[in-house]
């Protein structure tokens, strides 16, 4: 079948657009290679996708979103296997198919678009080549030249479809930006003209501006091709803005399903409600984010009842004993055509309590010291950077990461540093803790000025340690995997005590208590901790030195919203109690609104705007700031739905 | 002497499966034989291993020849006479040509000898001409050699062991580059070397213009196959028709597929004590060590019985026509035999100045693993009587250098004679006058006088008597402890046979005696 014919085929079936393209029923997947026998991961998932429809699958990390969709595509990772249920594509059962038959389905019927544009494309093949590999056979007869020309033309057409110029065909992935790569990947995914496109977190690895563009692109392609589109995401705002219907997954089960609009305005499951509530808002600052306590149970450690029962404020004994089932719910007053369903057995009783995500108490705009950061160096500021420059030199050319950056973090203040990826935020933070050198300007941390052009000496570093500590983004590398939590913290305490007299130094237990962890965690190794717990330990380690300035470099960005909210709350509390200053690096404007007193916006190595957080967010001056705020999904009615 | 090479020549008393084979006079078009180690040059003056001789004697001849049993005979000289004790006159054979077609003249002999004597050439054979006063062509076909002092043994120097004749033109043209793949060798012999690939093979072709009887083999290839295992497979798979210079342990494997002949090669392995240095200046110490050396055991175990326990340095066959074998036997029997007896060894040591034992070192050359094993065996016995012997392997070159340096009080003497005269061993090693070679620093006036008398004697019987006296006297003093006279093996596939496998078989053009089996 030629591409043209395929398109025509679509047109022919268009009237039957409402027919089910994908029907998953009771899908079960287990980890088969586990030492103690198979461990169920997906426990009976059902969902449907119609032609020309975009559905979203949301849920926190580890809930099974990717596995479910990989099972549909027949690409389960080794060590996992389907143990039950059915998957129909276009009415045909695909679970029992041979690898060969499954292979025939991929590309034509269903295609998976993956998360990371940086690893999804082969680094040694040109983009054009990779798109062409998925094309169906083109007419060119036996004439190789003609076939080649036809292929080339088709590739250029496909590139144009995703908004890229023909020259991209000859370029290698590493020569393109993340957003462009994701477009190339989309073109490659669509090369076989699939009827169903599954996009697994296609925007997570991109910065805010590209995120919106890629989402718009996918949505547009889905509409113009009348495909089915499954969008996997952990970001509720993204799902609501882009999808017609949304399934909420938790611990291998669908807990709720409904149209985006309905879900957003009236969740029918405590989990959905909790997720919505813990989402920081760009518009308002809350006294405290209503975080869901605890974290997602790992496969194998789930109880017999509702998987969410342990974290649920509304849980009743029945929740812990009875297996849950997704049941249709009578919409709360609205007469939408989509049926709504929820797995919460307590729904009749608690339905009303869930309806108000706005139950969050709006806080007074923070009492900000009347000065603008960076305007005038404050005498006792925690961090003063003056006209800092930093250029990275390499054989491939120089790259200026910071130019003329001036920033002050006053005492006892939370300053947020925002900006697109690569704008130099991390570089600045690392300079402040002495992990990176700078070429020009002056940096002083709590009165200690850092040397220009070289790394601080060990002695400098000791003194610096009392002034500033840092928490990094990746929870998985932030702790030494071989050391127990206790050993890590003891070392931090000893290092801190080495510089200062002992005496009031807190113990490991106190530190753990401070970050909300039980003392028994001292004997655990990082592998036995969840991501959120690891970040708490990292925070405790930083606090052991009782620094005057705490730098958080995207410290919560890798965490689920529920856990992120917990940590943000914790950070705010600690900051209030201990009175240290915080330089909080993030690209999430909601988080900025939630915790920052002051904000500085970085763009291409410069600080383009800074001021009191609320003012900057409400009335951005610099076009770049405005663009960032506009790109936030769900903000200001930013919907990509039709 | 030639440097002890990794392989040996053949001697008399041929034993083994091939001993009595006879040949048929059928032409053999080509034959391939394996040699156990490789050659880097054909020039025996540069690399004078036994294998180099093995090749060179086929292409080059000397004034005199040696028959397989050790008798001197005519070679390029049809006759020779000795007008006085210091003068040798050789009458050359007429009508002989070199393989390049040029005629052979007396001048070529002079040139060949001069090339050896020229210190600039550094020929390994140079030592043999130290006593020569002049070499002159005294006629168209006559060469006269005058010695500085009488030397009864000199005639042997003009056999293949001491002289291989080439043409003056060739020697001048290729000075310093003789025996390489490009220059090869030029001689008058039964074969002409047509190709030499260093470390791989030599190709020879019959010289139909040779003055002697036409050999049966037309083309001969000598392949160097250093690995014993590979060598045997080569034989079994028919890639080679035989092998020369097999070590005794290896030869066993060949017996099922080939006719293997073991022949004494006249070489001797001996311990040399420095009689001028403690503790070896003490006869009791030397006797103790002799009692501790299980020479029978070494021959049986290490050499697989393919050797003979040595009574003295010169092997029995070295006496050749100088003395009848029975007299040699009775003469050697008079040397006190020190049997393997650890108690006696202990007793001797107790009598010595080194009662409490001592530590000594013994080095052996890497080309003689059997020497190493013997050393280890000796070390094990000596340990029992309180003497520690540390055994060390060194390279052949180091070993040669060490031999004359006088640094090591205990050494191996490993010697391959090129003549059939006991004086070749007795004179350099027992005569105190031979300062460079008497590594034992042995000085016994009886022995010295006997050797000097023998040297200048023109009468055969006098020589024989005096030499035997010297050997017997030294035998009692034990400056050397002879361990064994070695045998070597050659193997031919059952199709072929090498006639007359005497102890001197390989000092002459041996390949001329190869025949198809009858």
């Amino acid at each position: 079948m030629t591409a043209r014919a395929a398109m025509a085929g679509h047109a022919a079936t268009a009237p039957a657009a409402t027919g089910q393209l994908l029907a998953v029923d009771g899908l079960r997947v287990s980890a088969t290679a586990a030492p103690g026998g198979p461990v169920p991961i997906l426990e009976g998932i059902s969902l449907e996708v119609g032609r020309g429809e975009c559905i979203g699958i949301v849920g926190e990390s580890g809930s099974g979103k990717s596995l479910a969709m990989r099972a549909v595509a027949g690409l389960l990772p080794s060590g996992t296997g389907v143990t039950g249920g059915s998957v129909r594509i276009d009415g045909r059962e695909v679970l029992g198919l041979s690898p060969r038959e499954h292979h025939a389905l991929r590309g034509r019927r269903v295609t998976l678009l993956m998360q990371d544009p940086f690893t999804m494309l082969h680094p040694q093949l040109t983009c054009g080549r990779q798109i062409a590999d998925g094309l169906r056979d083109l007419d060119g007869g036996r004439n190789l030249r003609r076939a080649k020309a036809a292929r080339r033309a088709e590739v250029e057409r496909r590139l144009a479809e995703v908004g890229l110029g023909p020259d991209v065909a000859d370029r290698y992935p590493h020569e393109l930006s993340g957003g462009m790569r994701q477009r190339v990947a989309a073109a490659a995914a669509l090369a076989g003209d699939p009827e169903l496109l599954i996009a697994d977190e296609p925007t997570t690895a991109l910065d805010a501006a590209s995120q919106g563009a890629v989402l718009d692109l996918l949505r547009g392609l889905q509409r113009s091709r009348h495909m089915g589109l499954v969008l996997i995401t952990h970001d509720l705002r993204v799902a609501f803005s882009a999808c017609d219907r949304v399934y909420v997954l938790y611990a291998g089960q669908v807990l709720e399903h409904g149209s985006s609009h309905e879900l957003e305005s009236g969740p029918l499951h405590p989990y959905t409600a909790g997720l919505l509530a813990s989402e920081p808002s760009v518009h308002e600052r809350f006294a405290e984010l209503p975080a869901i306590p605890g974290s997602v149970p790992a496969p194998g450690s789930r109880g017999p009842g509702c998987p969410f029962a342990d974290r649920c404020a509304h849980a009743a004994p029945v929740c812990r004993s009875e297996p849950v089932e997704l049941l249709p719910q009578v919409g709360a007053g609205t007469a939408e055509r989509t049926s709504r369903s929820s797995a919460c057995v307590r729904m009749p009783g608690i339905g009303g309590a869930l309806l108000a995500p706005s139950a969050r108490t709006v806080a007074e705009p923070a009492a900000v010291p009347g000065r603008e950061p960076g305007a005038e160096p404050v005498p006792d500021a925690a961090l003063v950077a003056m006209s800092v420059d930093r250029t990275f030199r390499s054989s491939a050319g120089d790259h200026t990461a910071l130019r003329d950056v001036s920033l002050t973090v006053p005492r006892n203040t939370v300053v947020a540093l925002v900006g697109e990826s690569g704008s130099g935020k991390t570089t600045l933070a690392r300079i402040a803790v002495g992990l990176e050198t700078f070429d020009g300007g002056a940096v002083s941390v709590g009165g200690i000025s850092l040397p220009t052009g070289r790394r601080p000496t060990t002695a400098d570093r000791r003194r610096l340690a009392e002034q500033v500590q840092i928490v990094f983004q990746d929870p998985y590398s932030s702790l030494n995997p071989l050391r127990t939590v206790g050993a890590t913290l003891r070392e931090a305490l000893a290092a801190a005590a080495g510089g200062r007299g002992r005496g009031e130094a807190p113990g490991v237990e106190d530190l753990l208590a401070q970050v909300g962890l039980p003392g028994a965690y001292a004997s655990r190794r990082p592998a036995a901790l969840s991501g959120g717990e690891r970040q708490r330990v990292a925070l405790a380690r930083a606090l052991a030195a009782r620094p005057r300035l705490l730098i958080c470099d995207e410290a919560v960005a890798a965490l689920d919203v529920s856990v992120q909210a917990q940590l943000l709350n914790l950070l705010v509390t600690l900051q209030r109690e201990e009175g240290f200053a915080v330089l909080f690096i993030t690209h999430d404007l909601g988080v900025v609104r939630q915790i920052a007193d002051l904000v500085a916006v970085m763009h291409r190595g410069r600080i383009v705007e800074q001021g009191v957080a609320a003012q900057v967010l409400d009335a951005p001056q610099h076009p770049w700031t405005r663009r960032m705020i506009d790109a936030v999904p769900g903000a200001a009615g930013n919907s990509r739905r039709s | 002497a030639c440097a002890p090479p990794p392989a040996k020549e053949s001697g008399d008393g041929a034993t083994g499966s091939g001993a009595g084979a006879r040949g048929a006079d059928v032409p053999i078009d080509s034959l391939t034989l394996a040699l156990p180690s490789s050659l880097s040059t054909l020039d025996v003056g540069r690399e004078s291993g036994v294998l180099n001789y093995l090749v060179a004697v086929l292409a080059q001849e000397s004034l005199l020849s040696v028959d397989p049993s050790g008798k001197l005979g005519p070679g390029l000289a049809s006759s020779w006479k000795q007008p006085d004790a210091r003068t040798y006159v050789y009458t050359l054979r007429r009508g002989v040509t070199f393989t390049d077609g040029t005629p052979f003249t007396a001048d070529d002999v002079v040139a060949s000898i001069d090339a050896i004597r020229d210190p600039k050439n550094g020929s390994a054979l140079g030592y043999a001409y130290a006593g020569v006063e002049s070499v002159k062509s005294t006629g168209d076909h006559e060469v006269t050699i005058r010695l500085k002092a009488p030397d009864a043994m000199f005639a042997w120097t003009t056999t293949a062991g001491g002289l291989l004749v080439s043409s003056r033109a060739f020697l001048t043209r290729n000075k310093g580059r003789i025996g390489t793949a490009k220059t090869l060798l030029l001689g008058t012999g039964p074969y002409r070397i047509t190709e030499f690939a260093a470390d791989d093979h030599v190709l020879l072709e019959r010289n139909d213009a040779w003055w002697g009887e036409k050999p049966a083999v037309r083309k001969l290839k000598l392949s160097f196959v250093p690995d014993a295992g590979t060598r045997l497979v080569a034989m079994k798979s028919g890639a080679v028709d035989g092998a020369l210079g097999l070590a005794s342990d290896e030869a066993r494997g060949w017996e099922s597929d080939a006719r293997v002949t073991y022949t004494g090669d006249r070489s001797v392995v001996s311990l040399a004590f420095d009689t001028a240095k403690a503790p070896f200046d003490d006869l009791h110490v030397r006797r103790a060590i002799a009692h501790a050396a299980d020479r029978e055991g070494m021959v049986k175990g290490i050499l697989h019985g393919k050797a003979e326990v040595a009574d003295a340095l010169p092997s029995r066959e070295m006496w050749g026509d100088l003395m009848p074998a029975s007299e040699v036997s009775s003469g050697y029997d008079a040397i006190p035999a020190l049997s393997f007896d650890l108690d006696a060894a202990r007793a001797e040591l107790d009598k010595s100045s080194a009662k409490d034992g001592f530590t000594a070192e013994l080095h052996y050359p890497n080309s003689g693993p059997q020497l190493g094993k013997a050393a280890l065996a000796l070390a094990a016995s000596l340990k029992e009587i309180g003497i520690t012997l540390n055994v060390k392997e060194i390279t052949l070159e180091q070993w040669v250098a060490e031999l004359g340096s006088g640094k090591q009080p205990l050494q191996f003497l490993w010697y391959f004679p090129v003549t059939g005269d006991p004086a070749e061993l007795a004179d350099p090693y027992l005569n105190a006058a031979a300062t460079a070679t008497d590594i034992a620093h042995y000085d016994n006036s009886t022995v010295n006088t006997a050797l000097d008398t023998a040297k200048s004697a023109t009468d055969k019987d006098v020589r024989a008597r005096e030499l035997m006296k010297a050997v017997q006297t030294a035998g009692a003093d034990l400056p050397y402890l002879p361990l064994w006279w070695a045998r070597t093996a050659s193997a031919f596939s059952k199709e072929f046979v090498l006639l007359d496998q005497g102890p001197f078989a390989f000092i002459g053009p041996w390949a001329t005696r190869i025949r198809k089996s009858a």
Partner: protein
Amino acid sequence: MKSRTVRRFSPLTVCCTILLVLFALAAAAGQLVLPDWDAQDLTTGAAMPGGGHLLGTDELGRDIARMVVAGARSTLAGAALVAVGSMVIGNVLGLLAGYRGGWIDTVVRRWADLLLALPALLVTIVVAGIGGGGYALAVGVLVVLTSPADIRLVRSAVLEQRHRAYVEAAQTLGLSPFTVMTRHIWPNVLPVVVANTLLNFAGAIVALSSLSFLGLGVPPGAPDWGRMLSENRTLLYDNPSAALAPAVLIVAAAVALNLLGDRLFEAFSDRGRS
């Protein structure tokens, strides 16, 4: 998808471990348990197995079975020395280069580049042969020439760890570079190093036995497997086991070490993944 993945502790791995333990025992205690391993009896000569000699005797009438047990020490010690020596060099230089960077890194990298370009065995033959230093020199040269791979391995492992957050966190705590290197980075690099040392060990056994084959090995008389193999090679018809036994043991030791090293690597990379 059905998985037919072989379990980590396969019987093969267990066999290799047992074999290595036996070798280690022989190396440690062989000469103590059999003090008369070198008892000789020239009258026996090289004899076939039997008559109280499990594997027969060599030309000096020494018992092959006793000799191979006693020989484990000398065979394995030299190779172990190579492996451990190069591991030590590799760790010290690799850690320094990877962690300190700068000119140290440049110098160490150039040095490793240089050595890595050389065929180790050839250099050993040339240096030990021309220098005349014998076995000790050969082992020394092998240590130096095996080390660049270790240096690079450690260095790249350190580079991978160096920018991990936990290392940078330790730095910001004001810990000394030495502490960070030895207490934080090194333990995390160690497993890879250990696995690699096993592989180097195997390589060194093969290399040293090759040297013995060429006559550049341990001194004569030492009960070294490589030496026994090359010395008894000609006894194929008197007592083949005199050469076969050490040959089989060399290959067995190398195989066991290689297999175990490979499995360890696999296990460690699995651990890194989960």
